[in-house]
């Protein structure tokens, strides 16, 4: 018996922390993103994100391009919501130069933004479920089906399916073609049925609930203090949406709700995105009804030379608040352009969200934030 007891103390598990390198090339990191994770067994003790693998110096490039030539660069930020990036940029330049956009142009922008939001949220939710291992790829492929219809509509208006380069300072590059509105109408009518289908498949899903409820909690105070925005901020119970708090374009003319979460866990972030899709459809319905006739773009000189000054314009992209701080020295190129990156700032509190959880929860929590490395690294 004595030898047995001494043997058991000898075999008592002694653990020591070790560093696990996740990424930069790994499917779950949604691009080239790297995390150095300090683990004790399977439990996360510390986490350090490492950025820069996709840094292209977009802010520096913008200084050598004219105001219009910068628009295609903004497509390469949040590449799953390029329309919203276009919008954030042109809005800042319009604010800087005091340009008025025709009503029809504003409505087209709102329609594109909301379609983009649905498409981006579909991808966010789809990849998130993929990360959770909910029957690999099935939910994602369901969502690709609907996203395809949105991409077809984008192709109709600008000929592109990923990098649209559709918005211009003063409006959009061209009016929507005749066949666009009937397609949009059909999409808006069909879509609630498809969202209901996802809900049916997912809302009570065992894996989803077990992996998301109570996991990766971002408390309300920390969310505000760490400059979180978009669905990440709203899931933590903060009713803050730029479309409501600081209405731009024609958003003040629509009736819609700002869905919020209760505790700020992975499940809330997922739920907020699903509910936002319903609200986007509401906005689209109203925009179609109110859609005015007229010009889609203001008449402007080919080369803009805004007066000396600076402006910060922001919009609510699917990932959060994207803003452009643009400084003009009265030349044809921006003197300085800074992009306020929603996804990078949403990652600020990632460490606090995952410490104490298992290594597999890092992937789930990281997936629930919904980032695009193009914008994180710029």
């Amino acid at each position, binding site marked *: 018996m004595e030898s047995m007891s001494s043997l058991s103390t000898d075999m008592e598990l002694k653990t020591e922390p070790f560093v696990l390198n996740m990424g930069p090339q790994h499917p779950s990191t949604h691009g080239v993103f790297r995390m150095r994770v300090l683990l004790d067994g399977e439990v996360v003790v510390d986490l350090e994100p490492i950025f820069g693998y996709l840094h292209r110096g977009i802010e520096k490039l913008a200084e050598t391009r004219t105001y219009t030539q910068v628009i295609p660069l903004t497509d390469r930020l949040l590449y799953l919501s390029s329309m919203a990036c276009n919008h954030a940029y042109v809005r800042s330049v319009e604010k800087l130069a005091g340009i008025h956009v025709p009503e029809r142009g504003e409505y087209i922008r709102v329609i594109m933004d909301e379609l983009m939001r649905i498409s981006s949220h579909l991808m966010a939710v789809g990849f998130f479920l993929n990360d959770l291992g909910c029957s690999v790829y099935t939910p994602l492929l369901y969502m690709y089906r609907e996203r395809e219809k949105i991409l077809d509509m984008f192709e109709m208006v600008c000929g592109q399916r990923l990098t649209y380069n559709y918005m211009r300072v003063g409006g959009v590059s061209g009016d929507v073609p005749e066949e666009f509105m009937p397609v949009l109408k059909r999409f808006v009518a069909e879509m609630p049925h498809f969202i209901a289908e996802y809900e049916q498949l997912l809302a009570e899903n065992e894996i989803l609930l077990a992996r998301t409820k109570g996991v990766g909690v971002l408390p309300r105070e920390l969310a505000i203090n760490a400059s979180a925005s978009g669905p990440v901020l709203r899931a933590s119970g903060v009713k803050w949406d730029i479309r409501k708090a600081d209405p731009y374009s024609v958003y003040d003319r629509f009736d819609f709700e700002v869905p919020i979460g209760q505790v700020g866990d992975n499940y809330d972030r997922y739920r907020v995105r699903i509910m936002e899709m319903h609200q986007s459809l509401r906005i689209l319905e109203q925009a179609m009804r109110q859609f005015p006739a007229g010009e889609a773009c203001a008449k402007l000189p080919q080369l803009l030379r805004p007066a000396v000054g600076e402006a910060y314009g922001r919009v609510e992209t699917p990932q959060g608040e994207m803003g452009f701080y643009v400084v003009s020295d009265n030349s044809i190129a921006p003197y300085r352009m800074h992009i306020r990156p929603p996804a990078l700032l949403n990652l*600020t509190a990632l460490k606090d969200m995952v410490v104490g959880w298992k290594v597999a929860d890092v992937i789930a929590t990281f997936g629930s934030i919904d980032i695009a490395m193009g914008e994180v690294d710029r």
Partner: protein
Amino acid sequence: MTKALIGQEVAKQIGERVPQSVVEVSQSWILVRPEAVLQVAQFLKNTPGLDFDYLTCLTGADYLDYLEVVYILTSMKHNHSIVLKARCTREKPEVPSVVEVWRGADYQEREAYDLLGIRFVGHPNLKRLFLWEGFQGHPLRRDYL
């Protein structure tokens, strides 16, 4: 609509609590001495009526004679905003870090350090955000070609 607070009015309040901190003021922004940034930030965040609880954006710009740090602040409680600025010289590009006031400043200050070479004194982990350690120079400076 987010209300843009009038610079002169807020500057007057700052001047009462943090004397001689304001250098210049306009309708839309307040320029403060770099040494006073942290105190002013604490004042703006913790004063009832101002309550700037949200750091929307922190960035910098190089104007060749000086480097400028820009803080765009928002109060979610009152839905108003203000722009705070601080200038430092190129010889001594130092500004106190505001990470202890707003955690959201963490990566933004690291980015400004990386690309503009502004040192944020008191930052808990001030190293390059995008470029690698050992990279020469700061690309967003106007004289970096």
